[in-house]
């Protein structure tokens, strides 16, 4: 165990030497001496004092003011402080207690009394330190436990998204790419890092409602007729039903994404034909990420569009289908978009294109 710092502040050198000698005789601590209160105060605010012994009658900063200043430092709220007094008026002692002195030492210093009080205060201090170590250990244990809970939650979400993939002709690589694009857009828009991370985790579940879409519609190779398309649209509502009112903030975000990712800012989207900022930001972001990746991927009913063609489509529909700010954010991160395409490329598509 490291030595406890006993800081002694007294402008009278004889008293300072006497108290130093008495503290040195105690085990487990070391004296730190100051004959000027200003220097002592600066040290106490920048370092780790374990006990302060401060004289009352000093020039510029007296003992009461010294204690007041020390107590302003949040770390020193519980720090034991003794004030040295001789025959000061009772009001001085009251003022010292009022600003947070723990006890008093009498001058001239009586060895037996001085050492007993210092020992008591140091034992109090050791208790405080042990308690705060214990609190830190517990806080760390809680942090690890919470991290594990989050990790399991994340895993559950990934498995849910995987389950949805089995029902969807779209590939796993599509889901990874659109999730990454979403995070890029959110970051560029200056949204909080925590939201960006949640979006990355939630985005893969945007089409989970397709679990409720009948096979003959979901797997139909050609274009859907009007009736079929109406049924297809319902995957947004089904996804929302599956995910809504979760205890997990990420899953609640995924519910909103499932519901809103086919809305368009001009109010021509589905299921609720919301306009502009009535569509939550996650819905507007995912719309861009999802459409861009769908356009540039092969689907049973379409070829993969080239990058120029897909970019032109997005730009052309900024302000009608897509939120303009999301489109701007997406193109501002174009190099990162290309890097994501490269990293999460679709092996099958590359074969098809070769």
């Amino acid at each position, binding site marked *: 165990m490291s030595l406890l710092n006993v800081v002694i502040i007294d*402008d*009278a*050198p*004889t*008293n300072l*030497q*006497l108290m130093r*000698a008495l503290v040195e005789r105690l085990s487990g601590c070391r004296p730190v001496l100051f004959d000027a209160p200003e220097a002592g105060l600066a040290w106490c605010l920048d370092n780790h004092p374990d006990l302060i012994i401060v*004289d009352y*009658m000093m*020039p510029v900063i007296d003992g009461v003011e010294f204690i007041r200043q020390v107590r302003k430092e949040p770390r020193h709220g519980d720090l034991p402080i003794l004030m040295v007094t*001789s*025959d000061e008026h009772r009001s001085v002692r009251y003022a010292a207690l009022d600003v947070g002195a723990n006890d008093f030492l009498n*001058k*001239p*210093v*009586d*060895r037996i009394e001085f050492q007993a009080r210092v020992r008591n205060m140091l034992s109090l201090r050791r208790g405080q330190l042990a308690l705060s170590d214990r609190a830190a250990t517990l806080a760390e244990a809680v942090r690890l436990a919470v991290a594990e809970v989050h990790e399991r939650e994340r895993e559950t979400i990934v498995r849910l998204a995987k389950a949805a993939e089995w029902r969807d002709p779209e590939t796993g690589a599509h889901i990874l790419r659109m999730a990454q694009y979403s995070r890029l857009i959110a970051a560029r828009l200056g949204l909080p890092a925590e939201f960006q991370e949640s979006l990355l985790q939630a985005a893969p579940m945007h089409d989970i409602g397709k679990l409720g879409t009948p096979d003959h519609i979901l797997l139909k190779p050609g274009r859907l007729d009007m009736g079929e398309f109406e049924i297809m649209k319902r995957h947004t509502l089904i996804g929302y039903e599956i995910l809504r009112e979760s205890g997990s903030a990420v899953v609640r975000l995924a519910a909103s994404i499932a519901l809103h990712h086919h809305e368009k800012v001009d109010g021509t989207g589905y299921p609720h034909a919301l306009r502009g900022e009535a569509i939550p930001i996650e819905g507007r972001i995912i719309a861009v990420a999802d459409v861009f990746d769908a356009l540039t991927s092969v689907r049973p009913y379409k070829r993969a569009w080239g990058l120029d063609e897909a970019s032109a489509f997005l730009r052309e529909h900024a302000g009608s289908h897509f939120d303009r700010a999301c489109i701007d954010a997406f193109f501002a991160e174009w190099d990162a978009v290309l890097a994501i395409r490269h990293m999460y490329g679709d092996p099958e598509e590359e074969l098809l294109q070769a």
Partner: protein
Amino acid sequence: MEKTPLFEREEVLANLDGDLELLHLLASTFVADAPRLIGEMERAIRTGDTEAAARACHNTKGSVANFGASTLVVELKAMEGVCRAGALDEAEAILRQIDLAIQRLIAELRELAPPPPG
């Protein structure tokens, strides 16, 4: 008539648990510091700063008390009260007595402690 010594050797040494080395250190520290203590009292009285004068008396009393010096402590305490009351003329007269007493205490301590080197 031989005056009673100001330095109360037995009591002081008992309080230091018989540590002669510490006693020597305290004595030489006080001897070196005494001119500053007296100077502060003089200066404060000369400049008419009653608060500083009272504080200087108080501090001198605190240092002197480490060596017993009961009569000197009583005088300093009285002088502190006189200063605080603003009677600096009276304080100046007391200071002359006190200066003499401090010189006597210094002499007693010098007998005990070899003068600090240098």
